[in-house]
């Protein structure tokens, strides 16, 4: 297993924390992991992205220029990173706000209306957790149990309800990705 992932979206969409949960869970599963954020003032409201690797092997380059999974939370991210995806790579799009189809037909695109689902759940901020659920369901890159443990760990002293809300969002994403993500 060698997941080389780029996650991209607006600052504030919870990209960094979503990526962090994946690598945290990967570490608990005994994999090698790395997490490289974009940093700097452009993050204020601009595009934020993150490179992550979860691998059975020792990680050489932690910089992901040719991802095998691309997760885009907004349209500029799709435009910026679509080209970089390897052939037959997995593309996960936030179809609540991306109505455009990807330009390439040699990749595996999935859409999931994470914003709408998050609103249904009662908290827009859980959209990233829904995407996380979809990603884990499709790739099995990390185990569900490790994700739950990471959520508990990262949210730390937060209220129980918040932890269970995030876990619910994760499960909703895992469930909805089959139901909603017929090929676009």
């Amino acid at each position, binding site marked *: 297993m060698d997941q080389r992932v780029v996650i991209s979206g607006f600052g504030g969409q919870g990209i960094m924390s979503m990526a*962090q949960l994946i*690598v*945290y869970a990967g*570490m608990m599963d005994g994999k*090698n*992991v*790395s*997490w*490289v*954020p974009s*940093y*700097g003032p452009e993050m204020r409201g601009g595009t934020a992205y993150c490179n992550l690797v979860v691998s059975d092997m020792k*990680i*050489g*380059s*932690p*910089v992901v*220029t*040719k991802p095998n999974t691309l997760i885009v939370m907004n349209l500029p991210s799709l435009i910026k990173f679509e080209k970089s995806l390897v052939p037959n790579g997995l593309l996960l799009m936030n179809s609540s706000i991306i109505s455009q189809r990807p330009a390439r037909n040699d990749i595996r695109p999935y859409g999931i209306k994470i914003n709408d689902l998050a609103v249904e759940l009662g908290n827009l901020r859980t959209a990233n957790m829904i995407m996380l659920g979809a990603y884990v369901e499709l790739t099995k890159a990390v185990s569900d149990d490790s994700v739950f443990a990471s959520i508990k760990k990262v949210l730390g002293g937060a209220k129980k309800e918040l932890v269970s809300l995030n876990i619910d969002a994760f499960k909703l994403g895992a469930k909805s990705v089959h139901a909603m993500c017929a090929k676009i």
Partner: protein
Amino acid sequence: MEKVLMKGNEALAESAIRAGCRYYFGYPITPQSEIPEYLSKRMPQVGGVFLQAESEVAAINMVYGAAAAGARTMTSSSSLGISLKLEGISYIAAAELPCVIVNIMRGGPGLGGIQPAQSDYFQATKGGGHGDYRLIVYAPSSVQELADMTYQAFDIADMYRNPVMILGDGLLGQMMEQVELPEFKENKLIKTADKSWAATGTKESRPPNIFNTLYLDPEKLEELNLALFEKYKAIESREVRAEEYMTADADLLLVAYGITARIVKTAIDEARKKGIKAGLMRPITLWPFPKALANQLSAQVKCILTVEMSQGQLIEDVCLAVGRRVPVHFYGRVGGMIPSVEAVYHEICRYAGMKDDALLELDAGIRYTYAEV
């Protein structure tokens, strides 16, 4: 030991505390501000001192004071901030004081940018400040190594009474990886390290300890320089560290350090799939540079390719080490751009004589041949 997930900057900071560093002086600058931020929280918890100085100039002179007073002490900054510290570093080296200086490099020259670079290699290894002095320079390439080398740096600094530099870059500082943090050093142990030379007050029981770098008499100044020279020779003979990757049968040798070395490793893996016998020498100590190893490896290869995030600085040490035995080529990105695995792979293919389609169009970057045979 339990593995934890940490940013490079934070792992480095925690590791310094575990090595017994209780005095940190710094000034904020991206991409290393997590170091002072982390220590502003941690130092008070362990009874240490975190002090945000009014400038890098002040911070390095606080380090001079703390080191002379016998403490384990550290400062950190990034490129342009290190430029400001150079005067102090020269004094610290001249006074033979142990300390750790961290440079998490960013693009330059001038105010430059905040993205990763390796363009301070000359500054770190060739002096930077005035006078004949040497820093022991470690170049970690992972979060684990940031932690481990920082931990060891304090002992090495004490052993040689010499400043030690940790030379990282913005990518290493900002990225997270799993890391096993080193054990806490017993406070007692550190205190018993012989620092009878320190300025602690004579307690009227010994002659004063004096820290001075002024020698108006040239004979005296030569004496100091000769003593330093002997020390540097000893360090050169004992402290060289390097990693070899797939060099046993290599006929094309890559040389790279820090995060770039990891990018190169992945490119070598790709090249090996195509039957190209590429290997890597990764200097872990930039000074002292692994001259002998470079020279020895150059005997078995057709050419050498150095890859750096600079216009080519490490390459000069490679050339000095191997003479004119084989051609030494360069590939690099500058200004905060990071060489991609693909670009390095393409360069390897080019020098291996592979006619790959992808090579028709050259990747962005600087390339040249430094030394023809």
